[in-house]
């Protein structure tokens, strides 16, 4: 019976000082199965996978692979047992070719020299077998993120892994690339290789997983077969209460414009990245900007935030503005500074909380306490380092400092990237509160569901152009997808706005 299973983890318990990360967890994976592992940030998914991959030793519990009890003391042990992991941040050398990256660390034959030719041939064969479309001689740095991910997967297949652990694999992928990944996982399944798929995204899990295990607070709250999977039920299991995945539509009468852009253009390194953008955001409305990542969204935010000057055209903000940048760690949070510092950094830069050149520590503290309660930021105290906080809490910090002064314009770029369902719901609520309070929002997102549930009007961005600005009642997923892919031309932006 037990030998039917490729992997069986029983009663895994792991405590860290102050927190029990895993409590009596059972996880069973059959050969050929795509097994979803679902849970909020901090639910214990990462610890469990680190135990499986030999990076962390469990306090209690046992692991059996193909029915044999094993001890996994290091990633090397894991690989020997056929367990491989694709990390969220790829472990590839960008300057090396696909073949070289895969050959790294291999010990084949007795010579100290790696046989790159042999490696290349096998890569070609494997690549063809799974439809990876990878050339052994491609330099990794020149590949798209999707292809780099396939290189990682290929690396594990080459080493004979038959259980792949994928940590939030779709976070860096376009929708098309995600679908391609899913077909690869199915193909692997038919050959008896299994996958553990860690994610926040319920719809993806339903699309690809044969079975899924839901974790909450370090415990297993349920294990569902394909037929039992249901977005609403899974979301409830994950956060322990009902979650509004689709926020109720809130239609208000828009007021005066708070942001007006006219013929906004930007050329960077001789290449046009923003082209003749004309649009307006009004009070009490959300203008969603949909588009595949890398079509000028980041540049648009940088221009509107004042980091970059437009090369032609211009924009006016009527009143105060706040920006939530897309790249949380890169552009929004100072990881080595404290929670308190991160809550007030915009204010201190703008001259608030100061007196005669000094930071007013007492006021900063009182303000911090207030935001902690008001925005439900979970932290032991204000002096905790931002790097020690979960992504969801970090995003709440950014939200809190952006919204507490009730700006007239909110520019929110990818405000829910990497967040779990509970935190996403929270961000949506805050954006709606902002709208209700009379503010205008420019929502820039690659998540179409997000755009559709929050926006009053939708602008579609392709290659730095707004190809259409449509009323929300005139769009659906399919139409949006076609516009984003540049297949259909929308009506002239000027006419729609």
């Amino acid at each position: 019976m037990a030998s039917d299973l490729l992997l069986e983890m029983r009663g895994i318990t792991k405590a860290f000082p102050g927190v029990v990360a895993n409590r009596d967890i059972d996880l069973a994976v059959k050969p050929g199965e795509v097994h979803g592992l679902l849970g909020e940030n901090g639910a214990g998914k990462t610890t469990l996978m680190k135990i499986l991959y030999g990076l962390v030793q469990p306090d209690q519990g046992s692991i059996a692979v193909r029915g044999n009890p094993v001890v996994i003391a290091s990633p090397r042990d894991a690989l020997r047992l056929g367990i491989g992991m694709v990390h969220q941040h790829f472990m590839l050398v960008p300057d090396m070719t696909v073949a070289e990256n895969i050959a790294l660390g291999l010990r084949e034959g007795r010579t100290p020299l790696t046989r790159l030719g042999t490696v290349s041939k096998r890569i070609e064969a494997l690549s063809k077998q799974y439809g990876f479309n990878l050339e052994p001689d491609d330099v990794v740095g020149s590949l798209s993120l999707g292809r780099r991910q396939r290189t990682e997967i290929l690396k594990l297949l080459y080493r004979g892994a038959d259980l792949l652990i994928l940590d939030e694999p779709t976070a860096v992928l376009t929708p098309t690339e995600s679908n391609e990944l899913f077909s690869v996982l199915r193909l692997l399944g038919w050959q008896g290789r299994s996958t553990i798929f860690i994610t926040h995204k319920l719809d993806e899990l339903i699309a690809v997983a044969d079975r899924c295990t839901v974790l909450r607070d370090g415990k297993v709250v349920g294990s569902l077969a394909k037929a039992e999977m249901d977005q609403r039920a899974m979301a409830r299991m994950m956060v322990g209460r009902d979650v509004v995945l689709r926020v109720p539509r809130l239609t208000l009468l828009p007021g005066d414009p708070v942001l007006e852009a006219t013929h906004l253009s930007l050329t960077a390194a001789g290449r046009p990245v923003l082209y003749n953008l004309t649009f307006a955001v009004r009070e009490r409305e959300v203008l969603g900007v949909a588009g595949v990542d890398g079509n000028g969204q980041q540049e648009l935010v940088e221009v509107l935030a004042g980091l970059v000057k437009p090369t032609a055209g211009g924009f006016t903000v009527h009143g105060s503005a706040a920006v939530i940048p897309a790249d949380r760690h890169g552009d929004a949070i100072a990881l080595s500074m404290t929670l308190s510092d991160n809550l007030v950094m915009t204010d201190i830069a703008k001259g608030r909380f100061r007196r005669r050149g000094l930071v007013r520590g007492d006021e900063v503290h009182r303000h911090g306490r207030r935001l902690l309660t008001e925005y439900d930021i979970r932290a032991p105290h204000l002096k905790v380092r931002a790097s020690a906080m979960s992504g969801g809490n970090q995003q709440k910090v950014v939200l809190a400092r952006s919204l507490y002064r009730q700006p007239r314009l909110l520019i929110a770029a990818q405000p829910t990237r990497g967040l779990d369902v509970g935190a996403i719901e929270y961000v949506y609520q805050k954006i709606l509160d902002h709208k209700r309070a009379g503010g205008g929002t420019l929502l820039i997102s690659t998540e179409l569901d997000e755009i559709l549930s929050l926006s009053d009007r939708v602008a579609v961005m392709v290659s730095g152009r707004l190809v259409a600005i449509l009323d929300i009642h005139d769009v659906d997923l399919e139409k949006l997808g076609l516009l984003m892919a540049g297949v259909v031309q929308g009506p002239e932006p000027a006419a729609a706005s």
Partner: protein
Amino acid sequence: MLIIALAGADSVEAINALIAGSFGGTIAIARTLTFLLPLTLVALGWIVAFSSRRINVGFEGQILMGGVAAAWAGIYLAPHIPFPLQLPFAVLIAVVAGGLYAAIAALLWAWRGVNEIISTLMLNFIATGIVAWLVAGPMQEPTHQFPNSPPVVPSALWPHLLPNSTLTWDVLLAPILVAFTWFVMNRTAAGFLLRLTGSNERAARFAGVSTRLVTVMSLAASGALAGLAGSSLILGAGTGKLAAQFSAGFGFDGIVVALVARNNPLAVLPAAVLFAALRSGSGLMEARAGVSSQLVFITQGLVILLVAGSAFLFEQMALD
């Protein structure tokens, strides 16, 4: 110890001599403390620049320019201004000179993207050249016999703290500036913006900080601290004359002090005492135990390796 033994000397004797040379008696302690201020100031300068993630290796040059300014003020300007203002004025001019000299590298970085490591290093050579030319030309003493300037007006010098020693009152600036630097970095808005810029430059820009200005200011402040060190080498413990190479490697040893202090201003003082003692005691060690004072450099290197190694170990432990 092992290294001293390998060098063929009595290690106990050598260590005793090193300690006696740095802490044995008032004179030795005074000499050690004389080295404390320049080491401390340069270390603080490194920390200030590094807070905005810029690397200033031009302290030697900034010390030299600060010293030139202090000497110029002390020799040519002091006779024309009232006594109580002579010293403060000379010190102030040196601070400005060190800051401006560092600002050259800072502005080259801001306007032209010139790497500040290269520019500050190159500016050291230029400063060395300028001082060599000054003491053999425009600022040479009247007899034109020796490669140094005439002495600074005695009333513009720091008064002695202890009789019969090189120690002058300026050593008190060391703890004061340590406290001041810590206060500016941790309690003022300017210090906040500096730490923010160093922690995440892009987030600082999104918050509306002119990170370029902050960085230029941090490099200039870093140079100003070195300029102050330069003024002390002329107006404090030294001969009161400008001479070539008077910076004596403090500009690099101070960086080591900052690294040992792990960029924490409050830890600079003990680290500076350690390195001041090594510098101070090496002479006696060489004389008494016959151990080359070069071995002190090896010791310094070992200290750095050990500090770096322990830092690495601590991080590993924190990760587990």
